């Protein structure tokens, strides 16, 4: 479903070029759930941005459901996102001047789905905030806002869901509810989930965990408590022979 090849991201700073992603090579199968974990500033959100086509890599390839994301321009990437990708953010990112229902309808309308309202009402019911349909985001609690965001992410039945610290702004109780909801819906719709978090408990709920440290991505084996590297794919990837950490 997702495959990257020698993905590099460098940025210009006043002190010269700074490579914030070392060459990253990994692939994700359809229906898999992957957690990308790491400390703040390790580059995990940068990677998420690249995988979702929100940003462009300095070099390397990204294949998303067979589409060469690295070859697409902004417009084509937007179209691809609309059709195949769903998003959940730490700060919810709801449009403040649209109601909960309208926020959920938005992606469906953008790609021109039929009956966006009926679909939105359905998913709203699934996330359990149908009684808040007509409320604006600032009238909702954090937990409710994130439920609406989850509903918005699922309305287009995306093949891939990107979640950036989905519980980062929530208390323990709400975090737990949102997590359950996210994984339940994910399972139901067989969506590929890429989840960025620094919460090890949340990460454990995913099929695989990848750890990001200073721009390097390594797979965390299920029996490992500490971050370590697995060279399982290394041998299959001659292009990254010289790389210290490829997955």
């Amino acid at each position, binding site marked *: 479903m997702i495959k990257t090849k020698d993905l590099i991201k460098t940025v210009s700073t006043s002190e010269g070029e700074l490579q914030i992603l070392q060459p990253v090579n990994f692939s994700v199968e359809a229906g898999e759930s992957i957690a990308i974990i790491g400390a703040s500033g390790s580059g995990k959100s940068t990677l998420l941005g690249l995988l979702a086509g929100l940003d462009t890599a300095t070099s390397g390839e990204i294949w998303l459901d067979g589409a060469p994301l690295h070859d697409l321009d902004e417009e084509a990437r937007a179209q691809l996102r609309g059709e195949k990708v769903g998003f959940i953010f730490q700060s919810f*990112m709801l449009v*403040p001047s649209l109601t909960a229902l309208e926020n959920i309808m938005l992606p469906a309308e953008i790609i*021109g789905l039929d009956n966006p309202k009926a679909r939105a009402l359905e998913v709203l019911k699934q996330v359990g905030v149908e009684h808040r349909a007509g409320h604006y985001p600032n009238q909702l609690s954090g937990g409710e806002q994130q439920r609406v965001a989850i509903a918005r992410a699922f309305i287009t039945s995306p093949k891939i869901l990107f979640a950036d610290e989905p519980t980062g702004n929530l208390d323990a109780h709400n975090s737990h509810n949102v997590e359950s909801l996210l994984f339940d819906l994910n399972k139901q719709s067989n969506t590929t989930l890429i989840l960025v978090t620094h919460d090890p408990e949340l990460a454990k709920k995913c099929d695989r965990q990848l750890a990001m440290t200073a721009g390097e991505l390594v797979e965390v084996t299920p029996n490992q408590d500490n971050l370590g590297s697995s060279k399982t794919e290394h041998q299959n990837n001659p292009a990254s022979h010289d790389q210290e950490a490829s997955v």
Partner: protein
Amino acid sequence: MISMSSVRAKNMPRQLAWRLFKHEAKRGELSIILFAIILSVAAVLSLSLFSERLQGALTDRSAEFIAADRQLSARNPIDPAWITQAQTFSLATAEQVSTRSMAFANDELALVDLRAVSDTYPLKGNIKLAPELFATGAATTQIPKRGEAWIDSRLFQLLGLVIGDNIELGDATFTVTQILSEIPDGGFSVFNADPMVLINHQDIAATNVTGPGSRVNYKAYFTGENSDLDDYFDALSPQLDRQIHRWLSVQDDTSPIGESVARAEQFFLLASLLAIVLAAVAIGVAAQRYAQRHFDPVAIMKTLGASTNTIRKVYLYQISFIAILGIMLGAVVGFVLQQIVVSALADTVEVSLQVWYWRPMLIAIFTGSVCALLFCLYPLLGLFSIPPLRVLRRDISATFSSRGGQYITAGGAILLLMWVYSQNLKISLILFVSGLILVGLLLGATFGLIALGRVLGKGRMGAWQLAWARIKRRSLDNSVQLISFALTIMLLLVVLVMRNDIVQQWRDQLPQGTANYFLANVTQEQRPKLVEHFAKNGIDTDGLYPVSRGRFVKVNDELIRTDISKEDEDTTNETRRGLGREANLTWDTVLQSGNEIIAGQWHDQWTPQNSTLPEGVFPVSIEERVGERMRIGMGDELTFNIGSEIVTVQVTSVRTVNWQTMQPNFFFVLHPEAMSQFRASYITSFYLPPERKPELTKLMAPFASVTMFDVDARINQVRSIIDQVSAAIEFILVLVLVAGSLVLVAQVQASMDERQRELAILRTLGAKGMMIRLSVIYEFLIIGSVAGFMAALANEVSLYLLQTNVFQMQSSLHLEYWVIAPVTGAVVVGLLGAASCWRLLSMNTQVLLRKML
């Protein structure tokens, strides 16, 4: 399987835009930008509609002075085909033939100003008839019937006539049937004003006074739509001979009224232009804020798959919805506002009864659209360029950002609007360049302020230090804010000071107690008696001036061809011959009030003994403008024939004369030595309060031979127009002040939004409310006072340029505003800042933080 509809996708941007528009309008999020558009449209519409109506009324009033909208004056009979042609242009026409002629009655004769008018005369204004001699006249719609003559009160006295008597004019005899009080274009000249006789146009031929050798003035009058009048003039002008014909429109009226109206029109134009600029600034501020608020929604939509094209459509639709609603509401508000003002001022200000004009409406719509489009363009371009990555990294802003481009577009839009609206590049450029100078100064001031802040903001962190820290950190935003505050204050100052100066100069022209009667032909013997008699009756005369008529003979060695030119002095004086064959000469060693020597030396120092002039040559002081027209300057020798004596004088001084003062004024003032051998008659003027008017006949009874001119009606007319225009200007001032204040509110509001996050953080960190409030107040006080000071500076520059180049007024420094502007700026901006801050800080921190999300 997901089903998609292309129709739905196509309509999506409009539907989404409508939905966003509806919700945002309901939640008050559009209020500032909507309000700015409403303000611009309402201000422009109400100002221009009101000024159109007022100008309509004033032009009508002024038109009365030429008895029509346009007047063609000629020395030869006007071709009847031209009159017929005018009628094909849907113009109303009238005709008048005038000449000076002798009138005979009761074995007496008098020189009269004979006017023969056609049935439709006057096209504007009224002929007024008096019920008894010298009484106030009442309007009539009639003209004399054939064989009838309506004559001036003075002529009744001079010829000893009563109603029903006959009077001979040339070869024809007329019956006197009415006492003529005034005609609209009767003119207003103290000298040479012969009593007027009005007869029917068809009778003029029978008098035979218009034959060869006589000096006759033919006039044709036209009224109609301006465009028709202009078209007619364009068609007629190839046939006009400048030597013979003179085309006169209301705008050419150089009387005090004409000048007042012209100046008022310029003021309205200026005020409207400033209203446009104010509105544009408001829209610019609001659009910037609007775009910033939509950074996140755009990033979200792009993340969710919306193409840039879709985003573009959504926001262009939304801006269109806002602009349309703003323009509609603005039009309603503007119209109602203007109507309220018209009703409120109904007693003072006369406006046209026509309540609707298309031009102001079109201008208002054009202004609203251009402002919305051009001022939103750059913020929107920035908005469209927001990358979707912002959803992950909130610090990412618009990738398209060109402040330079934004300023050029905004400046260009303002200049375009000003130019289109005023059709006066000069006035537009003056304001625009002043604005640019101000912007430059302010940018410099901002950096100065930051440098100052480093010094003043030192010490332990308190409200004062916090204020300076914010000014320093937000230097770029502050410079934009400072510029918009200062621009607003400057525009308000310009309107305020211009209004004060204009109204003051008008009032100065005709202070209370301005002479309303003139006396002429007072003999030397009558002079002391008259002074005594008037003093006894408690009436002051403005001094008695000796007058003698002198015929021009030579200027230096050049003979004046008086035999060819038979013009009188009250007519055109375009060439050296132009002053006419005779001039009214006076003599004195005391310089009259309202006169100022601009070259040479006044007579008071001159004596025959210390004279440096040739033997038998005396000094003369000439009025500046007549000198220019006749090409006479310092040192030129003028020779007059007075009686049968020759008097030679040399120009030893040049004077400016304030012709607006209602006192006798003279082109030529000689030294008394030059005139010692001549008998003089005297003229004077005096003020008689209206309630004492009935005493007039008694007052003048001992001086039957003295000629009296009643200019009371004229003065009242001028004064009432000045009062009207002043009241109207007051309204415009208030409107511009309100508009300006609202712009300030919008600006403070917009900047408070930006400060909200910081306030929330400070609050969360436990900063005391009072400290935050004080820091905001200090910050706004500092910005307000700097903006006020800069505005005062720029105000002087623009006032100087406007007053000297556009309004033809004396310009002076307005030092009081150098203090008033910074203080007012600080207080108003500080208070507005404090009020907005109070509102924010009255919310609990939780709400404040949530508002940030």
